[in-house]
């Protein structure tokens, strides 16, 4: 018997049966197809696809840019979250609402508009060009796109944690003679490290898999500005299903591991991350 205990409520078999069926058809079966196609391959086939020079260059680029973007978001996202949680100022509600823009805006739109703004002829790209910086069509552009889509993860993770800080701790620190900076670095920041780490990891995970907003601004030069997601699509376009599947499996394994560690982190400091975008 699957069911434990007794409830007077009806509908157990129907709802569980339907959920399981729908889950199997829409999610599990397609993922199983990925595993099945890999199992048809020989080890040499798999290895030559995933350890290919171009594939390795794409992993390096993707991991490096996603980490740089998540780090940028950890710093500025923290600042934004701090202002939203602690201060009352004109425009605060607008600031709060606009944080969700990257969640709501289709990635293709953010991709083309970031390219337009930050390419050498664009509004901000022209300024950067004068300063000798090239953003669009370089790894810096990829980082920018990943900063854009990762920002809400950090802000929405950290702001509630800042609000939850117990005021008495700060008062105690202040009354014991700690300055404001010392209170922040020694008392507040350590309490916020778990949520900041989780926000960083979520933004990093999102950056690793991001496709739409990155491909327009990246330039997509093999070995230089080609992210792993794009390499998978390129292999598919060439009907090289074996290579596409192998590289996808590496990526899938990486993001599962990452999200598993995020879940462990979260269950330790249990707090559901706000919103599910």
């Amino acid at each position, binding site marked *: 018997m699957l069911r434990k205990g007794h409830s007077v409520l009806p509908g157990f078999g129907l709802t*569980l049966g339907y959920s399981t069926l729908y889950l199997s058809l*829409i999610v599990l079966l397609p993922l199983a197809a990925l595993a099945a196609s890999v199992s048809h391959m020989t080890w040499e086939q798999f290895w030559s696809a995933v350890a290919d020079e171009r594939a390795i260059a794409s992993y390096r680029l993707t991991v490096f840019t996603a980490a740089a973007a998540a780090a940028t978001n950890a710093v500025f996202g923290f600042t934004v979250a701090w202002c939203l949680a602690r201060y009352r100022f004109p425009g605060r509600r607008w600031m709060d609402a606009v944080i969700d823009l990257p969640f709501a805006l*289709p990635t293709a739109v953010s991709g*083309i*508009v970031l390219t337009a703004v930050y390419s050498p002829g664009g509004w901000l790209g022209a300024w950067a060009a004068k300063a000798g910086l090239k953003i669009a069509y370089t790894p810096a552009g990829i980082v920018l796109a990943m900063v854009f889509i990762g*920002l809400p993860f950090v802000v929405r993770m950290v702001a509630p944690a800042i609000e939850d800080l117990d005021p008495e701790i700060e008062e105690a620190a202040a009354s014991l003679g700690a300055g404001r900076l010392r209170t922040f670095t020694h008392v507040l920041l350590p309490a916020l490290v778990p949520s900041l780490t989780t926000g960083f990891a979520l933004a990093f995970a999102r950056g690793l898999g991001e*496709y739409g907003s990155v491909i327009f601004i990246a330039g997509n030069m093999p070995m230089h500005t080609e992210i792993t997601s794009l390499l998978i699509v390129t292999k598919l376009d060439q009907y090289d299903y074996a290579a596409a599947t192998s590289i*996808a499996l590496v990526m899938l394994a990486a993001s599962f591991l990452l999200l598993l560690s995020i879940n462990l982190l979260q269950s330790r400091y249990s707090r559901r991350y706000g919103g*599910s*975008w």
Partner: protein
Amino acid sequence: MRPTEPRWMRAVLICCAAAFLTLVLLVPLAAVFVEALRKGAAVYWRNVSDAATIDALLLTLFTAAIAMPLNALFGVAAAWAVARFDFRGKNLLVTLIDLPFAVSPVISGLVFVLLLGSHTLVGGWLAEHGVRVIFAVPGVVLATLFVTFPYVARELIPLMQEQGSEDEQAAVTLGANGWHTFRRVTLPRIRWALLYGLILANARAIGEFGAVSVVSGHIRGSTNTLPLHVEILYNEYNSTGAFAVASLLTLFALATIAVKNILEWKMRRSRAAAEGRG
């Protein structure tokens, strides 16, 4: 009184935050509309009312119209099973529901190509019978169902767990049948959260790019959703056209954010009311 930073420090931090958000979010947001209207309102209108744009819009709405009821049905069923009963494998089920969030967009499309592409067993059989899934509309719908899968269930499960089942048990004990209990007791208490989950899922359905791009094959007018149409126009160097279509999607995104904020307010209020009553 909670200690706080000196006034100048607060001002510096707020300015830093505002400058960062302006560079990353606000300037691009404004640029969508400026670029779309660069050649004037008449060209904008022509781009927006172009036959290919309308086709893409219709496919996008069609896909969302299939995905939303299925998401609502699955979300409610899963939440009812998980939040109202104890059974073996419950934690596994909850974990598996989140799975699509861990899969990157391109891979979400790839798995359907591997399952149903014409080179596969199932896909080959379907093709013999004249059914095309991959590089056709059904593929776009399936990929959308995959990427929007967790949203509603994720909102409803924690809410219904928190609410508990006393009221529903009372209704059933007093002789109401299951459907009646759900409609009269459960639904009024979860409607805002249900709508919230659907709004998030809908935004994703309409905006999804990577997964849909992989399964669509980019056939103009037949498997082209709005985001894919943006890409096609952009790659044809029709930047004004691409931004005109993008501006439609941006307006939709802004509307989503507005509705989301209203629903968050409604949910806070109904939670406060429930606490007041309890």
